[in-house]
């Protein structure tokens, strides 16, 4: 799963500053030329501080999203309605833990430790995808997450396989392969519900109603309020704008919903022949920014669960470290 680059306030850049005079202009020029030539930047290469900071923020947000994203799905593993669905969900959540790990490793190559990143998540300083602050109320939500949330994630992540930072791009190649399985299983689970009993159909439509708009919000603020986008495009951290990706997602997903017999919860949705895409209604940006600020419906529950898991198990990590130290001592003796 994926988080886009989240800023705390509309119109206010978070961290990215223009390239400062403090940095050697020859180095900057050489860096920008490499990026423009689609070369990968590697950990030991020189890079502008703002590039490094943007990447650490974006990659760690992405890693945190994978980890927090285990919670809404974990909520249903124990209640998955068949052995096959349970196995699929376990495999999916396992993939997500793996994605979190690759991404933390990719971010660590930029000089920030995993402990620092986790501390930033738990203190509320670091963000994660707004989508995980919505609750999973029924089994259909698990199907909807696979179909819509992982679908949106793929849309975001495919271009990131060509992002300019080498370790991030390579992590993305691996992640994308697994995400496409996540999306397919979600759609397949949704199909079963949409073709099922009246109760299952109701569940499916209700989940679709609740997840549609938050999925559109996953692409981040509109381009006119996405101050980091221009810089990120220039540095090829991003390859397409939020609105471009959002439009692609709508155009692909609406026919899928129609095939399922589900109604898109947007009275303004209509095909626009001229642009060859759908026009859709206004996203509730107040809600988006509120969720980014940590006011999502289950934001407290998610963070409490993460902190509790971390704090109540601190003794395990301490024991592992103590044991390792003893072992080394014995080897040295």
């Amino acid at each position, binding site marked *: 799963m994926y988080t886009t680059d989240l800023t705390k306030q509309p119109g206010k850049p978070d961290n990215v500053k223009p390239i400062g005079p403090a940095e050697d202009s020859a180095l900057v020029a050489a860096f920008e030329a490499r990026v423009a030539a689609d070369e990968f930047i590697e950990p030991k290469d020189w890079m502008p501080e703002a590039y490094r900071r943007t990447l650490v923020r974006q990659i760690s947000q992405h890693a945190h999203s994978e*980890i927090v994203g*285990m*919670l809404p*799905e*974990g909520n249903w*593993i*124990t*209640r*998955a*309605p*068949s*052995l*096959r*669905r*349970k*196995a699929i969900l*376990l*495999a999916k*959540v*396992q993939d997500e*833990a*793996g994605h*979190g*790990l690759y991404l*933390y490793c990719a971010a660590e190559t930029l000089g920030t430790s995993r402990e620092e990143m986790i501390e930033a998540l738990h203190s509320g300083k670091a963000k994660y995808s707004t989508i995980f602050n919505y609750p999973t109320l029924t*089994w259909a939500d698990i199907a909807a997450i696979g179909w819509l949330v992982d679908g949106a994630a793929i849309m975001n992540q495919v271009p990131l396989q060509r992002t300019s930072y080498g370790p991030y791009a390579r992590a993305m190649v691996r992640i994308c392969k697994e995400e496409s399985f996540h999306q397919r299983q979600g759609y397949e*689970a949704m199909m*079963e*519900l949409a073709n*099922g*009993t009246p*109760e*299952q159909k109701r569940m499916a439509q209700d989940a679709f109603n609740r997840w549609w708009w938050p999925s559109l919000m996953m692409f981040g603020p509109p381009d006119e309020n996405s101050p980091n986008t221009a810089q990120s495009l220039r540095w090829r951290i991003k390859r397409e704008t939020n609105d471009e990706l959002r439009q692609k997602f709508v155009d692909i997903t609406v026919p899928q919903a129609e095939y399922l017999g589900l109604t898109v919860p947007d009275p303004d949705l209509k095909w626009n022949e001229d642009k060859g895409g759908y026009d859709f209604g206004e996203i509730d940006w107040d809600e988006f920014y509120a969720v980014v600020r940590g006011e999502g419906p289950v934001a407290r529950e998610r963070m409490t*669960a993460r902190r*509790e*898991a971390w704090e109540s*198990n*601190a*003794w*395990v*990590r*301490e*024991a*592992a470290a*103590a*044991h390792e130290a*003893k072992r080394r001592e014995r080897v040295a003796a």
Partner: protein
Amino acid sequence: MAEQARPHGAFDAPSDAHDPIRAGYVLRLGDDSLILGQRLSEWCGHAPSVEVDLSLSNLALDLVGQATLLLGAAGDADTLAFKRDVLDFRNCLLVEQPNGDFARTMVRQLLFSTWQHLLYQRLAVGTDEQLAGIAAKAVKEVAYHRELAGEWVVRLGDGTEESARRTADGLDWCWRFVPELFEVDAELEEACRCGLAVDPRSFEEEYRASIAAVLQEAKMAQPADQRPILGGRRGHHSEHLGHLLAIMQYLPRTYPDAKW
């Protein structure tokens, strides 16, 4: 095994109706894997580190996979998993024990996986082709579970004072359920007699020695023997199993006509 038409919803009539002994034995194995897989999946998202979360969900996935094959050899796997009540479950009491803290989870895993590994090594070369095939596939997974749990018990036992205390508590909790793993009742005796099952007493000594070796490396004292708690194989479980089933079975029971 020959395909046979079964009456709809006849979950208590094993597909291999000619051989209730076989179905009963396979059910014991399948229920062990299913219930432990269900328990481990409760950890998802709440483990001490991302690496541990990965390991635990990996174990759970292996166990659910084993359960699917084993219950499938006894009947319709989903019907067996989701439509039976407590009295019809045949798992041992150890696997249904609540997770407790991470130390208890790992002790439970060590005690079970060691037993399962020794058993499956033997079943894999057994005479029942289907069961041997399932065991041969699972034995590789279980070898890893045993190794992982052993490493954690050593780390925690020989870690800090707190982790050693918690590991001792976990052992103390789980130890009374170990004798059940080696209990041979009339049903199991019959399954052994016809060459299907393995008599667990044949590897009890090896089991005890293996656990003792891990505990020694973990600098943990061997727990004193406790009065055995038995009954799981006859459907007499702890109070915990009903709650586990209530969660696990809630959807198929609420919507009995639905397919998922």
